[in-house]
């Protein structure tokens, strides 16, 4: 009887602990911008898995925008930004710099591949 009680208490404690354990932090993906490139320029994401995008700039104001993935970030040198998103649709999505940064700006883009 005593042993059964101990087992029950241990099981209950384990349940409570499990409930209080935070889920793993989202994977962090670093994306750097400089005129007129993103590094890396292809990033693979996993469908239905949260991911944190951390965006930095090496030279001036840049944007990272892809409407379909709800990614909308701005960065200046020394002022990074980040967002956590969960892509729910597989596919290939083009991201653009949407903060005009000079005459090569029109082709400053990268790709997210969600699998």
């Amino acid at each position: 009887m005593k042993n059964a009680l101990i087992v029950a208490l241990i099981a209950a404690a384990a349940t409570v602990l499990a409930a209080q354990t935070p889920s793993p932090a989202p994977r962090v993906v670093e994306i750097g911008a400089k005129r007129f490139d993103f590094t890396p320029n292809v990033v693979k994401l996993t469908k239905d898995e949260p991911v944190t995008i951390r965006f930095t700039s090496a030279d001036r104001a840049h944007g990272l925008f892809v409407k379909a993935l709800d990614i909308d970030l701005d960065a200046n040198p020394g002022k990074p930004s980040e967002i956590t998103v969960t892509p729910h649709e597989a596919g290939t999505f083009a991201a653009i710099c949407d903060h005009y940064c000079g005459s090569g700006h029109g082709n400053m883009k990268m790709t997210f591949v969600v699998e």
Partner: protein
Amino acid sequence: MKRSIDRRTFMRISAASIGAGALLHFMPLGSTASGLTLRNLLGRRNGESPGPFSIVQLSDTHVGFQGPPDPLGTKAFERAVDAVNALDPQPDLILFTGDLTHDSDDPAEHARRFASFQSIADRLRVKKRMHVPGEHDAALDGGNLFREHFGETHYSFDHRGVHFVALDNVSAGKPIVGAGQIAWLKKDLARFPKTAPIVVFTHRPLFDLKPEWEWFTRDGDQVMNVLAPYDAVTVLYGHIHRPHHATMGTARHHAARSLIFAFPDPATTAEKKPIPFDQSQPFHNLGIREIDGNGARHTISVNDVELTSREISGTEGIQQIIRQGESL
């Protein structure tokens, strides 16, 4: 070369789809009750009677741009000036829809490009010219150089019964109009009945034409919501370097050709790369737009004309840009 192009010839050229800018014609407000009310309102406000007129749209001259994909420099712009000067009768008004200059990291060099644009535009016989900035004019300095040359980046005015609104969707650095300008637009339009013909001119498209190529305005839907109650809205824009026409609700959107180089159709091309220069047709895909309007019927027709027209240039092929002793 002195050459006169009457409206009939211009229309025939545009029907043949050969390429140079835009000419809009407007007819007087008619005898309907709303038309007469509006005519009286605008007459009192502006001291002028609404009447038929035409306008020309020129876009994306990119003065200062050099190098691939073509060696034209300002030659297409200068040829367009000649073509517009040859129109008989002359249009009332010319609208420039942005990217007048190509940007430079050197502010002094960019200022020289604005001055060069002005010196070419000053050859136009039409002296009433209105401008909005493109990102190459205004996104790096918040529009300061543009304002020095042309005044505010957004404004409105009336011309013979049509209300014109200039919108700036570039100088914030992002493709955005912004809450302040949208509030201004609401206040500006509140003075008019819903039947008032309205022409909005801006640089970027006010809808998601191709966001992956940055052919959009992030808050364009908010702008169009403000315009939605009005019966006759025409939006003229540039930026995409190719003609495009779309109707959404009561608004019709028209993109003009550029005067520097053309972009391909994104529906059939994956990469955003300029169309290669063709020596046999140096002005191919570059052009002028003529716009005809009828205030009585609240309709506006758009006629695009390519600069490759022999009737405009007087010659063909590479000779169109190296004639008169010119060289590339």
